[in-house]
Each structure stands twice: as structure tokens, then as C-alpha cells.
């Protein structure tokens, strides 16, 4: 596969951006559920869209429920917040309180998931956009039930190369585990490199030209 290549420093910069975004978002989630939210270190890889779907299946084989938001601008893609379907009720209980009857909780499921997704994904994406000094158009949250394939339905070519970013999170006291994933389209790799280089220069005060790979 002729994958487009980012330099190590550019990958570092992208990982750091995602880390900033997700950490901010986790802080918001912890305020909502009043428990600590644990995060893994983000993993960034350059894969085809098919491989990204396979990665999701590998990590979470069972039925999943997720919220996704698409973003568009100088960078374009989809951000997802995903749980095993059986755990989503726990999240909702954590959000709205355990005292509600199950029927009411079921009714609130879509709304609570969309709202949680909105807070987390918007928080993450806006931190990234601000750090890159760019604005992103972010779509409304959409709740999807299914497996990895369903989460990327209606996105373009399956053999297209994307950047796949993956972070586990857990609310241990509530036995809630899930993950955040982000698929970044690479129609303009040069633009992404330029934005990352700008971010590197602002962060380090140094021009990242050394070792640049086109």
C-alpha cells in the first residue's frame, strides 16, 4: 500500500492534538457522571477505510451503539463515541441518575447518547480546530446501533486511505468502557501537513522543516 507518510514529529503533533481534545472532553464527561474518566494514550495509524472498520471489529466484536459527528473544513472526517450496546444503559443511568424507572431510561437513551456525544465530540473537535487555528463545520450528532461497518456507512471509497485515531476510555466505578475513534480523510495530505507544521512551529518556536517527507 502506498500510504501517505507523515513525519514522526507530525504524528506526534497529531497525537498531541487529539490528546488535548480528548482530555478536555473527558473532563467534561467526568463532570457529568461525577466520576473519574480514565483515558488511554491515543493511537494514530494510516490505514485504508476497510482496515479502520476491521480495527473497530477487532477491538469490539459485539453489538455497539455509537454517536458520530462529521466535520468538514481544511480537514474532514468523522468522530465517533462508541460503547458496547449492553453498557450504554449504564452510561445513561450515570448521567440521569439510577432512580429513574427502566422505561423512562429507555425513552431517554437516544437523547442522552446524542447529548453525551455532542459534549464529548464537539469538545474534542473544537479544541483541535482551535489549536490548528482553523474553523471546522461540525454536523449534529447521530446515534447509530450496529457494528464497525455501520459506523462508516455512507462515507466514501472503502480503499481510500485515512488516518485512524483510537482512544479507550473507562468510568471504572460505573463499569462503563468505550472508545473514541476518529477517521480523518486525506484528500489533501499537503494541507494537513501544513496545518500540523504550523502547530509544531507555534508549540516549539522552531520550524519543523528538517526531515520533512512529502
Amino acid at each position: 500500500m502506498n500510504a501517505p507518510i507523515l513525519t514522526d514529529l507530525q504524528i506526534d503533533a497529531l497525537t498531541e492534538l487529539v490528546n488535548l481534545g480528548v482530555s478536555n472532553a473527558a473532563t467534561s464527561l467526568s463532570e457529568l457522571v461525577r466520576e473519574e474518566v480514565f483515558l488511554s494514550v491515543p493511537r494514530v495509524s494510516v490505514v485504508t477505510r476497510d482496515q479502520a472498520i476491521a480495527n473497530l471489529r477487532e477491538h469490539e466484536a459485539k453489538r455497539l451503539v455509537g454517536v458520530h459527528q462529521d466535520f468538514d473544513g481544511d480537514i474532514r472526517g468523522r468522530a465517533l463515541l462508541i460503547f458496547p450496546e449492553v453498557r450504554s444503559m449504564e452510561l445513561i443511568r450515570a448521567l440521569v441518575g439510577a432512580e429513574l424507572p427502566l422505561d423512562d431510561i429507555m425513552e431517554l437513551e437516544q437523547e442522552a447518547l446524542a447529548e453525551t456525544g455532542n459534549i464529548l465530540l464537539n469538545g474534542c473537535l473544537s479544541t483541535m480546530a482551535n489549536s490548528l487555528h482553523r474553523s471546522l463545520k461540525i454536523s449534529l450528532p447521530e446515534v447509530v446501533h450496529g457494528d464497525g461497518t455501520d459506523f462508516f456507512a455512507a462515507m466514501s471509497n472503502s480503499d481510500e486511505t485515512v488516518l485512524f485515531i483510537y482512544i479507550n476510555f473507562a468510568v471504572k466505578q460505573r463499569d462503563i468502557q468505550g472508545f473514541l475513534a476518529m477517521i480523518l480523510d486525506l484528500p489533501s495530505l499537503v494541507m494537513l501537513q501544513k496545518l500540523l507544521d504550523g502547530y509544531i512551529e507555534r508549540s516549539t518556536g522552531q520550524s519543523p522543516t528538517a526531515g520533512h517527507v512529502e
Partner: protein
Amino acid sequence: MSYTVLIVDDSKLARMSVARVLGTLYPAWKRIEAANAVEAVQQTKELAPDVALVDFNMPGKDGVTLAAELRALDPKLSVAVISANRQVEVIKRTEAAGATFLPKPLTESALAAFLTSTLSAHKAAPP
């Protein structure tokens, strides 16, 4: 008076970023770097830094656990844990480890305030 500062982060970019902020404030201070907990412990033993600036979210050992270990190794060492993860629990654990929590992205004013207070408390006032 010049001090030695250890910067610990698995991300090279993040280390460069912290080094820039520190270099702007105190260009003459010695900066040393570690990419993980093992290197950080080794550098602390060998080079006895005065201050350690530690990232929270690292593979393997997290920054708070490392902060506690470094403080046990050298109780005079001033440690700050840096993170965008500003959860109450993370801040509490940082403080319980005898370290100071600094929000990421690190600003000159936040770092200057930490260095001034920690170094004047434990040692002579910084320049």
C-alpha cells in the same frame, strides 16, 4: 542561580513545547529530557534535577505515579504534572503525590508561578 529541569513526556513535540516555554522564561537553566518513566528515574538518579515537569497521559506508568516515585527518590525534587485532563480526581491524586497540577497547553505565566513558588519554598528564590 541556575537550576536543572527534567522534562518527561512520551511525545517529542510536547517536550519541545515545554522546553520552549521554559527557555523563554529561563534561557540559562539546564534542560534535560526523558521519553518515559524508566528514563526519568535514571536521569533523576544520575543528574539530580531540581524540578521535574511530567506529562500525565503516558504509555505504561502515568505521570502521577511517576511523580510519586520521583519524589520518593528525591524528596527535595519539585514536581509538576502537566495535563489537559483537568478532572478533580486527577488534580487530587497529583497533590496527594506531593506534586503541583499545571494545565496543558502550558503557559509561561503558569510555569513561572509554579517555579517561583516551589523554588522559593524549597530553596533560594529563582532569578
